[in-house]
């Protein structure tokens, strides 16, 4: 009895030591993320106006995500590595479940867990680089063909399921996160060239498998004016919002494109258009610099990681972050087709924020367990 109590006490102390100490984070990265989240919330307050719920909801989700980041930062990379195959398998299973019984407008993406709904595809954005890093860190580097083929298969499974939902944007991100691991693992340049050539050759095949609405989006992207009142509307109005912002912007809450509802999806996919309209080129450049800083800082953490798994994972998470920015920023500016990729920490969307910050939690953990300086 006493023994049991003592045991419990020991457990309690261990729990306290492990979880309740002050957070150990990479403060430059944490501050950059906080700043970015602040920008995002301020922008959403205006983009969602007169509805202030949008900004507050996003703030709540940011808090949840930040808490998760702190918690994950306390899990050692070794533990993460140990759980990797199970997490990966779990995420693929959830994707299968969604494929069978998911819900969502037009596309089956959501899983209703009664308390909250979430997109298993977001989970894959994390488990994919973990799994790739896990596989490649086990063998010799640069990776042999067998490992590469295995990773390729492991990428294709979740990516295929997500693309089938259909959610091309997320599938793209999942593929990218896996590819970054391979790239960072040192895959030979000639192999990279070969894969690129194969991808180019496969494009017509991919076209064949694309949904009509996806094909239409691509056409519309190429010539927005042809579908002025339909999908082209998004692109044109977004360009008008961005362009009319000029160098200095119209000012916070002075943007007309979102307030008058010319710009659709102005809190989610096109939140950055609102930001561009109200803060101008100056704001855009500042935010892009912040993104570059975050990516760069993430890569530094990766470079200093203790082991190969941590290094590859941290590197992939950082570089994936860039893909979000590029795809969303390009879409808003009309140089990339409309796909549902959010602007990190600026677009409204719960799961995306939480998943992003969870990823940064892993980076923090890797930072906390970095190589000791010689």
């Amino acid at each position: 009895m006493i023994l049991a109590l003592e045991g419990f006490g020991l457990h309690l102390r261990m729990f306290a030591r492990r979880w309740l100490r002050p957070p150990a984070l990479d403060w430059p990265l944490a501050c950059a993320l906080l700043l970015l989240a602040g920008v995002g919330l301020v922008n959403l307050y205006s983009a969602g106006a007169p509805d202030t719920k949008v900004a507050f909801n996003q703030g709540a989700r940011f808090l949840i995500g930040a808490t998760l980041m702190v918690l994950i930062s306390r899990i050692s990379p070794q533990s993460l590595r140990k759980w990797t195959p199970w997490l990966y398998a779990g995420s693929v299973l959830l994707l299968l479940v969604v494929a069978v019984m998911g819900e969502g407008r037009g596309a089956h993406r959501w899983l209703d867990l009664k308390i909250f709904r979430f997109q298993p595809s977001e989970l894959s954005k994390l488990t994919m680089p973990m799994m790739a890093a896990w596989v490649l860190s086990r063998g010799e580097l640069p990776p042999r063909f067998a490992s590469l083929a295995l990773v390729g298969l492991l990428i294709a499974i979740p990516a295929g399921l997500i693309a089938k939902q259909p959610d091309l944007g997320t599938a793209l991100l999942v593929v990218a996160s896996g590819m970054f691991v391979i790239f960072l693992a040192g895959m030979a340049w000639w192999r990279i060239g070969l894969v690129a050539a194969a991808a180019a050759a496969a494009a017509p095949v991919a076209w064949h498998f694309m949904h009509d609405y996806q094909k239409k989006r691509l056409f519309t992207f190429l010539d927005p004016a042809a579908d002025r009142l339909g999908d082209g509307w998004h692109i044109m109005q977004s360009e008008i919002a961005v362009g009319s912002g000029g160098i200095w912007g119209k000012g916070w809450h002075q943007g007309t494109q979102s307030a008058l509802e010319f710009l659709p999806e102005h809190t989610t996919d096109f939140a950055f258009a609102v930001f561009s309209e109200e803060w101008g080129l100056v704001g855009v450049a500042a935010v892009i610099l912040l993104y570059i800083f975050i990516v760069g800082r993430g890569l530094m953490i990766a470079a200093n990681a203790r082991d190969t798994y941590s290094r590859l994972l941290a590197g992939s998470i950082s570089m994936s972050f860039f893909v979000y920015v590029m795809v969303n920023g390009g879409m808003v500016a009309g140089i990339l087709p409309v796909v549902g990729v959010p602007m990190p920490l600026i677009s409204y969307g719960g799961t995306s924020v939480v998943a992003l910050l969870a990823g940064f939690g892993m980076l923090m953990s890797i930072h906390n367990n970095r190589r000791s300086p010689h």
Partner: protein
Amino acid sequence: MRLRNARADAETFRARAIVGFLVIVLCLGALVSRYVFLQVYRGAEFGQTSDKQRISVRSVPPVRGLIYDRNGVLLADNIAAFRLEIVPETVEGGRKGLDKLLAELGDVIAISADDIERFRAARAKKKAFENVPLRLKLSEDEIARFSVNRWRFPGVEIAPYLTRAYPLGPNFAHAVGYVGRIDINELTRLDPNDYAGTTHIGKTGVERWYEDDLHGAPGSETVEVDVNGQVRRKLDTIAPTPGKNLYLSIDARLQRAAEEALGPRLGAVVAIDPRNGEVLALVSEPEFDPNLFVNGISRADYALLTEDPRKPLLNRAIAGGFIPGSTVKPYVAAAGLELGVRTPSDTVVSTGEYHIPGQKRGYRDDFAAGRVDLKLALAWSVNTYFYSLAYELGIDRLSGFLAKFGFGAKTGIDVAGEGVGVLPSAEWLRQTRNQPWFAGYTVNAGFGQGFWVVTPIQLAHALTVVAAKGANRPPHVLHATQTGIGAPVQLAPLPLPGPNVGTRASTWKAIEEGMWLAVNGPPPSTVSGLGKEFPYAIAGKTGTAERFSRFDESWTYIATSSADRHQVLFECFTPAEDPRIAVVVALEAGKSGASDAAPIARKILDAWLKYADDVPVRRVAEAAP
């Protein structure tokens, strides 16, 4: 081995990470350059595009000016009414949806084919988010019915507006005229900026003549609209300039008296103050209710008016063509005196029949008056005197002089729709019918028959010239204007006087004496006794003209009813020496000017007498010579 590997892996990673980072920076640099392109290079252009789609300038129609009589009696008012409007953009299902909606609306509210045609024309001129009126002046019943069914018709609204109303109804139908909905022809003619929000326009009478003054200038409202065209806020407002209020010189009391004196007879009355040309009464019978036209007259009502053989829509006072008969004699006399062909005391012998020297054909006189001077010739209306006078003058001199009185031309009265009439002349006959002039025509012209056509307003104008002893003051109805209710009433400038007619005071004295004798002398003065028990001396002249040529096929029918065989007229002014009012009564059918037209004129003068002194009179300086 393991350690070396780990170090090599780290080195490989570092190299790859640096390459990756550089590529990322390059890509994001490219992305920013796209933003530079959009925000700097094309910033101004997108700024304009953004403003263009959010800022909308809407026209605010001005309130139409009111119309009063000279004493402030309201003749044309603006009253609140309700109309049905459609915002085409908010109608579901595009063009087909609109057709369906119009069909279904028809079950609830009567919508005519005209309404729909006008709606479509107006719609084509407006932006999709602008309201387009469909039906005006809804009845309370219709408003109630629509309210119950409102949910069935998204995009359809009931909106208040101001509509024209004529409180005195038919009484001023011809003088004031009416407004109506802008029709398709007008829509293409009007300045779309000035009339952007306006639905009505003056169609006839004063409403048309003074359209520009009454309409005012539209204001504008700069608003910010959202993607659905809903107004979010007003950015700028320029208030419309309301149309001017007009005070007519017409006296509603005299107008009413003239209308009552005419009764059901087809004809016209014009009363003018000869001292300034101000029209005091302008009546044409039959009348109609101008209120019918304001919000679109029904086909049945319109047919009733247009198919009525009495032609109620014809404004006989300014556009009715009458054969003047003997009413032209004072003017022919003036020509003789002024051109030196006669003196007042020169005499002519009437045997009952006149012959042009050397011709067999006889020109009839009513009776053998014997030797008459000008005075008696006018008082007894002796045709022979004027036959010979006209013959001696010759047509060129005669019509040349009569043109100075304004015959054969518009008087320029400020009421839309004036007619021209015909002043017979050799020139006119050649131009219109390509026929040569014969001396017989001159004889006929001398007593107001033959080719003559006058409008009552022309005759009244000529009469004021005689009454004013040669001063030529064009008739007009605008007395004063006001820029808004409560603003000072400003007298309207009088039209420029025409050149004086005649130069000899004796001319007018002789004519006035003749016309006085016609009313005040014993028989055979034509209207002997008409001036009885009237405090002022009345001077007048009758006219009894053959309605139809004896060679006309309709003659036999008309001949059977002798009471209607003539067009009868009477012209008079009073007080004879210093006239304050000149009246012309013209009837399309009657026995004689003396028996039918003159008593009507007397009734009007009696009515005028009651308040002749309580209206301040506008004196004008003597007209320019």
